């Protein structure tokens, strides 16, 4: 037993395992940008926890929720371009159901879940059994869903509903002892809203699924080498279909979070959202080739992705278009880091 312990790496080198480097890089760059922002725009409030939580977390929680499912799809080596459209459809279904048909919002949500999960499973099955490239299959899914959105309504539908309002307004204030030793809301005011709660829950659920269940490990195996996974007797078809179905679930949940945020449904909502979500996952260290990715990485990927527009907003002199360019540059940077990590570990292996 002692021998076994010895040949394992030291704790430090295990933490520094190259497979985590991308996650560290994400966290590191996020911190740099944050500190940069804090120094330059500290007075305007970039530094305050409130700005961080509200601007970056709560306003972008729907991207995060969707990114949880997308990370899993990417780990299998697939891709899902339908997520933005499915989220938008969720909004349409809830808005149309509540406003035009006077249905209970939860009933509409349940229906949306059925649609989203069903579509995901269908696409997963086609991808697996018919060998259709995921890109094409989910692109078709996206067109279909967007089309249905437009069939429901061509205009934005507002939602006025007590439950939706209540959930949208729900907050947990973060409290701490103030100078007088009283347990009170910290200042500036800082809270967790329902969307953020959903996001955090989904990240935890995603982590448990990926790291602690056979299902999760099968996802990694499929991404590593699908043929091998098949020959090792793993349930490849089932796993892939569930992953796409789960991603459908995440998209609907993200759509729900978006509804809470804007309190309306719009057929063109979240257009291009799928690429935002993929960008979050990639910046978080998920490899598009499959087999590598962590939920923690995705969490920081979302933070980092949204930190940039925030930063640019704070600098009033820049056109908001710079945000897009900065995101592109960030992607470039990350992929270079990934390449360097791969080259470095290859060289180390050779030695």
């Amino acid at each position, binding site marked *: 037993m002692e021998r076994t312990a010895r040949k394992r790496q030291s704790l430090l080198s295990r933490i520094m395992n190259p497979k985590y480097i991308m996650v560290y890089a994400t966290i590191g760059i996020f911190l740099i940008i944050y500190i940069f922002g804090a120094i330059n725009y500290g007075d305007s409030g970039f530094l305050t926890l409130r700005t961080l939580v509200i601007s970056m977390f709560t306003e972008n929680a729907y991207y995060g929720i969707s990114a949880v499912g997308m990370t899993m799809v990417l780990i299998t080596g697939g891709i899902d371009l339908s997520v933005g459209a499915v989220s938008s459809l969720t909004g349409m279904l809830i808005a149309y159901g509540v406003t035009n048909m006077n249905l209970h919002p939860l009933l509409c949500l349940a229906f949306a879940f059925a649609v989203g999960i069903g579509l995901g499973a269908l696409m997963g099955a086609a991808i697996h059994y018919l060998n259709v490239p995921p890109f094409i299959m989910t692109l078709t899914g996206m067109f279909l869903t967007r*089309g249905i959105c437009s069939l429901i309504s061509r205009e934005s539908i507002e939602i006025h509903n007590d439950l939706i309002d209540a959930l949208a307004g729900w907050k947990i204030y973060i409290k701490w002892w103030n100078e007088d030793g009283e347990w009170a809301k910290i200042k500036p005011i800082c809270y967790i809203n329902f969307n953020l709660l959903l996001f955090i829950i989904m990240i935890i659920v995603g982590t448990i699924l990926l790291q602690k269940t056979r299902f999760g490990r099968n996802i990694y195996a499929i991404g590593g080498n699908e043929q091998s996974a098949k020959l090792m007797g793993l349930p490849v078809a089932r796993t892939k279909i569930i992953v796409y179905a789960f991603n459908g679930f995440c998209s609907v949940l993200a759509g729900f979070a978006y509804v809470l945020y804007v309190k309306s449904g719009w057929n063109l909502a979240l257009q291009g959202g799928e*690429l935002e979500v993929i960008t979050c996952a990639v910046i978080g260290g998920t490899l*598009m080739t499959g087999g590598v990715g962590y939920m923690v990485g995705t969490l920081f990927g979302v933070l980092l992705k949204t930190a940039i527009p925030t930063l640019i907003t704070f600098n009033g002199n820049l056109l908001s278009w710079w945000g897009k360019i900065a995101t592109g540059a960030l992607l470039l940077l990350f992929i270079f880091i990934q390449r360097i990590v791969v080259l470095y570990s290859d060289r180390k292996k050779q030695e």
Partner: protein
Amino acid sequence: MKKRSFNLASLTRSKITWAVVAEVLILLVCFVIRPDFFSIKIQESTGVLYGSLIDIVNRSAEISIIAMGMTLAIALGGTDLSVGALVAVSGAMALKLMRWDVLEYVTPGNYSVKPFWMAILFPLITCTLMGLFNGVLIAKGGMQPFIATLILMVSGRGIAQILTDGKQFTTMYAPFKVIGQGNLGPIPMPIVIMAVVCILMGLFVRKTAFGTFVESVGVNRSASRLSGISSDAVIMIVYSITGFLSGIAGLIYSSRIMSNDSNNAGINYEMDAILAVVIGGTAMTGGRFSLVGTLIGSIIIRTIVTFVYYFGIVAEATMAFKALIIAVVIILQSEPVREYFARRSDKRAMVKRG
């Protein structure tokens, strides 16, 4: 007899067959609903051909042109997501060079601030260079094409906006109008440009060995390199071509609206072009490609759109229709289904022979 049944089997195995069948079916439906669908007339005032079919081909020009390059990118085992953004860049740049300048002229009119050749050449050069940038990332940086081109897809529209300071310029300069709205004899200009591009591309890939090199690199990059093909150069050339063609498409698009529209120009073009290529029978995994198939694919996509417009279906539902028809084509083209049909016709042939 034997020969014919063999051909039937290989026909059902071919992906292009299904694409052609799909196009013919859609057109037939159109014909049944509106018998004048196929009529082509000459507009008396201008002497230009018009009619639904002409319109379909005319409107498919941008996607067809881009899809020619996309076919090569996909044959290399990659994709180019940046084409839509490059369309926006090209338009923005052309308009920036021609724009009506308040300081110089009182009203917008038939003039260009910078020489016209500049307004044509600079956008094309810029787009080619941006395509080359993609190619360098992929060939020299070893990046996956999806990610490498995602970079410009994300930031391209930002660049277009910054070129024009986020403004929308308009022009009334007549020579520019010719590109998208003019005509050569009786044929609308976009069709002419598209035909020239398709023919030149066809000659380029099939009359030189470039097509074979692309297929070879797409199947096995390292073996191709060891056989003496400069795989990196092939990749960079292909992505430059795709960029260049996006530039042309951008000029056509902005000439149609005589304006730059960085938000909407070329939106979803990458998706349409990729679909056109795949419907045309080129596999996303790379290797064998067919430019003719791509052309058919791109026309199918436009036919669907026109179909929807013509028959009073809600315009926004176009996407759903597109999806349904594409789904059918994709399923018919999928390996298991093609194998099934091929096996059946094999069997039938065997029965006939036996």
